[in-house]
């Protein structure tokens, strides 16, 4: 078989694949009648919201499905083999040999108690026959580390996973996957747990390796931005069924199905709505001056505590009716900032001026009264509601704590529920009866019940699927107008910041690296770090997003893969 022919034979093909769920689930099949191919040197993206069954397919490819779940009909062919029909030995050869896989969370995917070098050596030793010598293996491991762009391979080899950064770990995973030159790489949400800049590096690495080696890549993601950046072909899944598939151009530019259209539309976009600027009154409402916070993690008795600087002299002003986005990567201190303003975390120094008083000096009842005007919506809608408290109570409790009668508070609560798009009867239900998006609406209703002047949204939409995310963002935008709220919107997703904020603050390691009107920051970033962040936004050029690039007459950055 010559190379040309080989290139046409898919390294992976799914034919009418159906995977059955155990009885009693919400649907009989996790995946139904799914067919697609991955050819050599091709990146195919499986894209869909949570629960669409995309991970099931990936696991079925290497026969890694949990015991209770099995392929019901159809078949997967990987390198001309059907993994379900292989004996154990042959299956082992396939796994990590012809086909390798990497996962979403690189920390938990690596054995925490084994040096990473050993973990890669193991991959080589278990596949290569005749067994290579120790020196050869070692050599190969060093090579792999270098190939995946890990610095100082000699030191890294001896490291434990916990000693590496998230990006390094994922590189180790990739090095491991590459060890036996697989024909197919399956990457299951490989960048979801990573910061945006790291995400771009990892995606670029995968893409480089793909081209170097001509391997097929099956990339699973929920992010159309990622799809736009790296995919050759895309398969859109919903409830276990293929909605639509085709090349990136076809699907993203000219979606045939309404659902696909919906998903693409839901990708956050900056709306440069000049009207909003006018609503901002110049009076400052909340002023943060020189906030400092250092977390000290105690280690041993005599060991010095580890210090993490979360806030290093942060000052900011929030004007009335303004939405201020605080963006930054994980560990930048953005959530701590929000929590410090809410007095949930005690700052080491600085002042928080609100309504003419310094919140930091308030104690007891005075603090309680001040808090009424400041409310917060948290990231995780599942953790934000007391599972043992009815939704109506959750919303009414706040006003009741400030003296409103129960009947009146419940009445308000019901109104608010309707306002955030839920039914009145929701008041008598428990949180577990609601979906994530609905819960977040409840949380918003709860925060608004006290009629605050400032709302802090701490990654309020990050945990939601993209379509739900768009709806919640829209709701927040409406409410903000309606209730004349000033809002601090904390997010790691620059696209969301661009969509909702009037002004943006970019945080890095507890310091403000850039601050300005959204349009300015996104079109003419001053700090190199901001530029890096912007460059790393997935799918930026494809969606022409955040939209300023062309507006400013800039040439879109080149696609990573051509």
């Amino acid at each position: 078989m010559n190379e040309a022919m080989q290139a046409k034979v898919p390294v992976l093909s799914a034919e009418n694949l159906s995977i059955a769920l155990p009885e009693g689930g919400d649907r009989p099949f996790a995946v139904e009648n799914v067919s697609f191919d991955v050819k050599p040197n091709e990146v195919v993206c499986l894209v869909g919201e949570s629960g669409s069954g995309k991970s099931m397919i990936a696991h079925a490819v290497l026969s890694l499905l949990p015991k209770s779940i099995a392929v019901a009909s159809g078949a997967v062919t990987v390198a001309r083999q059907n993994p379900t029909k292989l004996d154990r030995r042959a299956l082992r050869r396939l796994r990590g040999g012809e086909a390798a896989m990497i996962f979403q969370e690189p920390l938990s995917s690596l054995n925490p108690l084994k040096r990473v070098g050993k973990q890669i050596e193991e991959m080589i030793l278990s596949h290569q026959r005749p067994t290579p010598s120790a020196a050869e293996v070692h050599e190969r491991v060093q090579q792999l580390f270098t190939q995946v762009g890990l610095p100082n391979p000699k030191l890294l080899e001896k490291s434990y996973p916990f000693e590496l950064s998230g990006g390094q770990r994922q590189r180790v995973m990739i090095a491991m996957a590459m060890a036996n030159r697989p024909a197919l790489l399956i990457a299951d949400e490989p960048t979801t747990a990573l910061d945006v800049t790291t995400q771009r590096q990892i995606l670029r690495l995968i893409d480089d390796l793909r081209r170097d080696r001509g391997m097929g890549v099956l990339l699973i993601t929920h992010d159309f931005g990622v799809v736009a950046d790296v995919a050759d072909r895309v398969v859109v899944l919903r409830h276990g069924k293929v909605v639509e598939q085709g090349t990136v151009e076809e699907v993203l530019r000219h979606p045939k199905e309404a659902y696909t259209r919906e998903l693409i539309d839901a990708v956050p976009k900056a709306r440069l709505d000049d009207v909003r600027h006018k609503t901002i009154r110049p009076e400052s409402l909340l002023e943060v001056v020189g906030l400092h916070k250092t977390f000290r993690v105690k280690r041993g008795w005599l060991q010095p505590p580890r210090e993490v600087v979360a806030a290093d002299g942060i000052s900011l002003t929030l004007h009335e009716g303004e939405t201020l986005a605080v963006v930054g990567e994980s560990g930048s201190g953005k959530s701590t900032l929000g929590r410090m303003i809410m007095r949930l975390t005690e700052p080491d120094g600085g002042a928080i001026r609100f309504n003419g008083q310094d919140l930091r000096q308030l104690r007891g009842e005075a603090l309680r009264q001040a808090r009424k005007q400041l409310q917060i919506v948290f990231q995780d809608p599942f953790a934000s509601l007391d599972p043992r408290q009815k939704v109506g109570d959750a919303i009414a409790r706040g006003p009741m704590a400030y003296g409103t009668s129960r009947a009146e508070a419940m009445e308000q609560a019901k109104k608010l529920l309707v306002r955030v798009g839920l039914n009145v009867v929701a008041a008598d239900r428990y949180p577990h009866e609601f979906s994530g998006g609905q819960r977040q609406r409840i949380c918003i209703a709860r925060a608004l019940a006290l009629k605050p002047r400032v709302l802090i949204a701490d990654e309020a939409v990050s945990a939601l699927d993209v379509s739900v995310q768009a709806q919640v963002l829209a709701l927040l935008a409406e409410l903000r107008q309606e209730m004349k709220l000033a809002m601090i919107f904390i997010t790691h997703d620059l696209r969301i910041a661009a969509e909702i904020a009037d002004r943006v603050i970019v945080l890095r390691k507890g310091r403000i690296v850039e601050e300005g009107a959204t349009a300015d920051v996104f079109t003419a970033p001053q700090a190199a770090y901001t530029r890096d962040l912007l460059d790393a936004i997935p799918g930026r050029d494809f969606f022409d997003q955040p939209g300023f690039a062309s507006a400013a007459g800039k040439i879109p950055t080149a696609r990573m893969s051509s």
Partner: protein
Amino acid sequence: MIRPGSAATVGLMALSRIAQLVAVILVIATFNFVLVRAAPGDPAQVMAGQSGASDPKLLDDLRKEYGLDKPYAVQLASYLGRVITLDLGYSYRQRRAVVDLILERLPATLLLTVTAFCLALLIGTTLGALAGLAAGSVLDTVFTVLSLVLYATPVFWLGLMLVLVFSVTLGWLPPFGYETINVKLSPLERVLDIAQHMIMPVTSLAAIYLAIYARLMRSSIIEVAQQDFIKTARAKGLSGPSIVLGHMLRNALVPVVTVAGMQAGALVGGAVVIETVFAWPGLGRLTFDALLQRDYPVLLGIFLILSIVVIVLNLLTDLIYKLIDPRMTTGAA
């Protein structure tokens, strides 16, 4: 980056442990002292009473001799001062230095507890691992039921039942004691003789911990089996045995070792009952006898030594923990 396990970190750790040890010893010493003094019963009275008769002069003499007439604060201060130098005082009743009394009993107790501990850990984790790997199988069910039953069995009753079966009924094993006394034996025979005496007490003492470790290991294995890195290992094409040995065992052992360390104290407590049942000449017996006699210095000494033993055992499990889990050394976990 501080390398895990480097001499500096281990040294630092040891140093901080020693400081901790001294602090804990002082607190426990104070606690013991206060508690024991709170007891009704005048030690002088007991000593005198046990002499068959007594009179006020004897009582006074005894009180003076042992400093019982001084204020508690003075007694405590002098006690703590002596404790630091490991002078645990002098036993009223036994008329010997407490340290000597304890040290001559300690080896028997250590032999019993350490053997039981090691066996329980070894067998328990092995059985637990087997059950966990075969979760849901007949083997698993049998092990689970067995460990549930063992876990519910009173230690002393198990000991009695063993005596009933193996000594009284079958006559296979010696029902009590540490070794056959006054028989000339070669060193090897002596070891075998002691081993034979150890079978039943060790079994009784180990049983409950074996059950605990087995159950723990089982759930730990099951939990580890669901971890992502096991999925990685399977995706790497590793064979079953190399996944189990290379990836699961060590990770699964971490919680077991933690619990094992925490239970060192309970194990030592269990030895008290078992030593009573099997007439084992160890610290457990000494504790009980001393309690009945209200032999304050011996009691204080035993509690102190037992606490030190427990702390040392904790330290050992800490070290094992560190061998197993590199994250612990740098405090990153």
